[in-house]
């Protein structure tokens, strides 16, 4: 018997020591919900048409180049618009449609067209990998690994396909010459990946001149793709001299390209940060430039002027970046369309990415650099003063601080901007920003009240949200604040949004759902600036007012009611709690009644999303009944949700002028009071334990004790968990657990609560 007990005891001990708990183990990357896009325009298509919205410093060089064109009095041609904003692929394809679309995309790829053409005349010969993927041994014990270097571009496969079709016509599909040609071409493309080096065998004796000429070209190409560029250059020069070769007009051009590749190949590969093919042997590159310049003047009709010019421009961006960047920037700036728009955008991006320093840069280049970097001092303002150009006026205004001496001039200069102009939103936003900073709220309000009605009739946008934020700042009273506080989310990636999705999913799929949440988040939510004011500057009595205000949409009224009610319960404010009770969801109302005592605490324990504050974006309050997977349950302290990267960031509230000093003082006192409270599991658990002392017959007590233990397990313990708080959590957990098991050993709640935490 003794031994049996021992065995049972140790077996139990082992199981207790191994509390494997199955949990959702994916690693979501939550981000704040988006109200104003700062990295890219809302809609590239309308942006390309000149609807620039509010220009942001985080926009990329393509966006800012387009903006500059419009600010410069030009516009994008339809062709340029299609390049900047290509049609988006439909996102809601059925699997069959997706498959068809994928196959269509694959079919037009030159490498696949080559494979298809080849397959008509020969058996498959393995995969072709156009990208060079093999590490290069530098010979000094170092290895340079740059695996995405496109060795064989699409043009190579297009040329091969055209040539194959031509040779079939010349020799016939069953010709041994064609077979020989295909074998040699396979060797050429086998070199693309860099993993193998293959050379075409010489053409058979007595081959026709065309095959012999092709073989010379194939051999040069194979040498080229094998990375033997000097040898390839010599081979191509020989082809250029062979006037009978169908390839002779390409010989010099390809010899120049061999030199370009040689220039990169000979570069000291000691600077892996130099980016895409940026390190090169300058002498070789200049030689290539000279060859291409000569070729541009005298080339045969077999090769196009543009082909040579494109290669030359590529080279000049490296050999004489000042001149080339000036050409690119001038062409992009317009106002006339840029015939080389796509490549110029790419070159501009390259120059900016490489931070190429240019003496006396072209206006567009200088403008983008300044707008993104916001240089200290008056450089941007001075540029506007000197040029009186609109792009510089816009940049000066956007970068101006309230105390800058040039602000009055900027405000005067921008007072008459037409509403239909591309710069209007940017100018209006920053004018209002500066006016608010200068304490000229009435003027700011007038501007906003003129533009907001029309803007509100349009699709939700970053600009609308930004203007609403400004209008909220100049609210004259609390009701006006509530009118402008809600904004439309443009993207949702927050933990609150994810919790709501999970909640809705659970509700839909569970056999007996215990959650109560909407199927999807309402688009209208509070942004950061609104929640800061509501959480830190708004006293409880105004939150009660907000919970019933018709200025807020229903979802936000409920969020405010829940947050304010939890505050009321924590502060034991019977009056406020009772006033809010009718505005709570039925399930909470039914449990809590109008009390702030045990029934209210039980209601909070039953609903893990409850908390005494509001959150920007989709709040956890929206999924209040759902136990969230990542411990965002109940609350700890007084702060709204933070993301880890922002955990150290202190958000200081902006003073809300529409709130009286007394209200702000009360709100601050309430905020401090919340800060002093323990984390929710400990606070709520203590209240349950206190109640339990004198109310052992309460039928809900067993459940409350069990839920307390659950809260200590799954509740948020705060970002900075100190020993004292952890010990308090465990003490409450243990006390609730022991009382539950000692007083209600046969309760189903005791059975559901095997451990404390």
């Amino acid at each position, binding site marked *: 018997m*003794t*031994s*049996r007990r*021992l*065995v049972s005891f*140790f*077996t139990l*001990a*082992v199981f207790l*020591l*191994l*509390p*494997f*708990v*199955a*949990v*959702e*183990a*994916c*690693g*979501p990357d*939550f981000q704040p919900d988006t109200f104003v896009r700062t990295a890219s325009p809302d809609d590239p298509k309308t942006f390309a048409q000149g609807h620039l919205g509010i220009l942001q410093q985080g926009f990329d060089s393509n966006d800012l180049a387009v903006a500059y064109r419009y600010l410069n009095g030009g516009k994008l041609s339809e062709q340029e618009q299609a390049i900047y904003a290509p049609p988006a692929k439909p996102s809601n394809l059925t*699997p069959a449609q*997706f*498959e068809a679309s*994928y196959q269509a995309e694959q079919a037009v790829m030159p490498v696949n067209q080559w494979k298809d053409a080849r397959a008509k005349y020969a058996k498959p010969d393995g995969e072709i990998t156009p*990208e060079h*993927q093999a590490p290069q*041994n530098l010979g000094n*014990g*170092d*290895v*340079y*690994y*740059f*695996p*995405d270097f496109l060795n064989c571009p699409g043009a190579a496969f297009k040329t091969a396909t055209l040539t194959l079709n031509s040779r079939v016509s010349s020799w016939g599909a069953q010709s041994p010459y064609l077979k020989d040609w295909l074998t040699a071409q396979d060797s050429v493309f086998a070199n693309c990946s860099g993993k193998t080096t293959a050379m075409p065998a010489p053409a058979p004796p007595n081959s026709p001149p065309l095959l012999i000429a092709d073989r010379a070209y194939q051999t040069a190409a194979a040498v080229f793709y094998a990375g033997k560029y000097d040898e390839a250059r010599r081979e191509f020069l020989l082809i250029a001299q062979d006037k009978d070769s169908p390839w002779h007009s390409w010989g010099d051009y390809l010899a120049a390209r061999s030199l370009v590749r040689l220039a990169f190949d000979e570069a000291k*590969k*000691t600077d*892996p*940060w*130099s*980016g895409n093919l940026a390190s090169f042997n300058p002498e070789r590159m200049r030689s290539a430039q000279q060859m291409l310049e000569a070729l541009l003047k005298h080339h045969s009709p077999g090769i196009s002027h543009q082909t040579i010019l494109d290669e030359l421009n590529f080279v000049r961006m490296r050999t004489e970046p000042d001149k080339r960047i000036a050409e690119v920037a001038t062409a992009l700036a317009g106002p006339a369309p840029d015939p080389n728009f796509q490549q110029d955008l790419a070159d501009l991006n390259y120059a900016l990415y490489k931070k190429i320093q240019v003496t006396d840069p072209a206006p567009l280049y200088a403008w983008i650099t300044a707008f993104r970097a916001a240089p200290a001092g008056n450089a941007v303002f001075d540029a506007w003063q000197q040029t009186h150009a609109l792009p510089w006026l816009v940049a000066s205004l956007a970068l101006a601080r309230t105390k800058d001496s040039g602000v009055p001039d900027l405000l005067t200069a921008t007072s008459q901007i037409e509403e239909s102009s591309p710069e209007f939103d940017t100018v209006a936003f920053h004018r209002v920003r500066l006016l608010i900073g200068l304490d000229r709220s009435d003027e700011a309000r007038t501007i906003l009240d003129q533009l907001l009605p029309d803007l509100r009739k349009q699709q939700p946008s970053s600009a609308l949200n930004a203007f609403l934020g400004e209008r909220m700042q100049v609210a004259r009273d609390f009701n006006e604040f509530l009118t402008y506080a809600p904004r439309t989310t443009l993207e949702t990636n927050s*933990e609150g949004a994810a919790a709501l999705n999970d909640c809705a999913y659970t509700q839909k799929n569970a056999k007996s759902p215990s959650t109560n949440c909407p199927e999807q988040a309402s688009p209208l939510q509070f942004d950061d600036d609104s929640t800061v004011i509501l959480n830190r500057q708004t006293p409880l009595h105004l939150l009660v007012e907000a919970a019933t205000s018709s200025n807020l949409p229903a979802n936000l009224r409920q969020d405010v009611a829940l947050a304010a009610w939890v505050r009321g319960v924590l502060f034991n404010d019977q009056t406020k709690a009772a006033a809010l009770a009718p505005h709570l969801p039925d399930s909470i109302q039914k449990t809590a009644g109008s009390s702030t005592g045990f029934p209210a605490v039980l209601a909070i324990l039953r609903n893990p999303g409850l908390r005494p504050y509001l959150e920007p974006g989709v709040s956890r309050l929206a999924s209040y009944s759902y136990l969230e997977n*990542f*411990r*965002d349950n109940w609350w700890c302290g007084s702060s709204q949700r933070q*993301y*880890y990267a922002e955990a150290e960031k202190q958000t200081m509230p902006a003073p809300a002028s529409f709130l009286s000093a007394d209200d702000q003082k009360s709100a601050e006192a309430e905020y401090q009071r919340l800060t002093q409270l323990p984390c929710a599991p400990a606070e709520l658990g203590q209240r349950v334990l206190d109640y339990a002392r004198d109310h052992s017959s309460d039928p809900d007590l067993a459940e409350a004790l069990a839920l307390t233990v659950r809260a200590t397990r799954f509740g*948020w*313990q705060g970002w900075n*968990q*100190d*020993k004292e708080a*952890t010990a308090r959590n465990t003490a409450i957990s243990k006390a609730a657990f022991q009382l539950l098991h000692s007083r209600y050993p046969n309760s189903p709640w005791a059975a559901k609560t095997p451990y404390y935490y």
Partner: protein
Amino acid sequence: MKRLSQSVKAQGIVVVLLVLCCVIHSDAVPRLPQRMRTLPRLTFWAWERPEDLRSLDTRRFGIAYLDQTLTIGPKVDAHPRRDPLIYRATASRIPVVRIEVAPGAIFNEETHRLAVQVILTSATAPDIAALQLDFDATRSQRSFYRDLLTDLRRQMPPNLPLSITALASWCSYDDWLRGLPIDEAVPMFFRMEPDRRRAAESLTDFRIREPLCQSSVGLSTTEAWPTEMAGKRIYLFPDNGWRADSIARFERKLP
């Protein structure tokens, strides 16, 4: 005699259970899986950034570099590494394949086959020391990854170790890694949000229970390190890239 025999039997069981407890919760130096023993104990991760790792002492340190990113959607897309990497030819190298899941991903035999095919291109590169996969797996995707790893193990070179990165939670309070045909799962003690909330006071309380996770640990250059690293293979991730996160500094800091 019968009572004595029962007593001895019970004591025997108790001893076995105690030993089991000790094994499961032991902080003793972990045994390295057979195939992993030839690898350096310390490995520097090189992610999608230009990196110059020539100064690494290749006798002490290996390199695990992002080799390609594979995206599972309705099809499988593969993107090779985009940034250059320089290292000593003598370095012990582990190509890493990152697996992403795009919206509308389909986990079926076709995507399984294509994914294995893509991963094998990294696994069959010459002179590599191991292969590592980096992926997130939701509960519904686990059977896909289990099958993928099984098939991959079957097709990749037999002596090549197979490593995966693992959320710390997989190694702590989850058991889906159990029995996977891998040589190690590297628990990542960084970017732990929102898992960090489960760790009580310090990382040491994030106890690793899964045997496959016992032999290694993944750290970052900017986040706190656990104290129990004795005998483990250590992977170090540079939050700011190795140009900013001084290689020399971490060479000195690592045990």
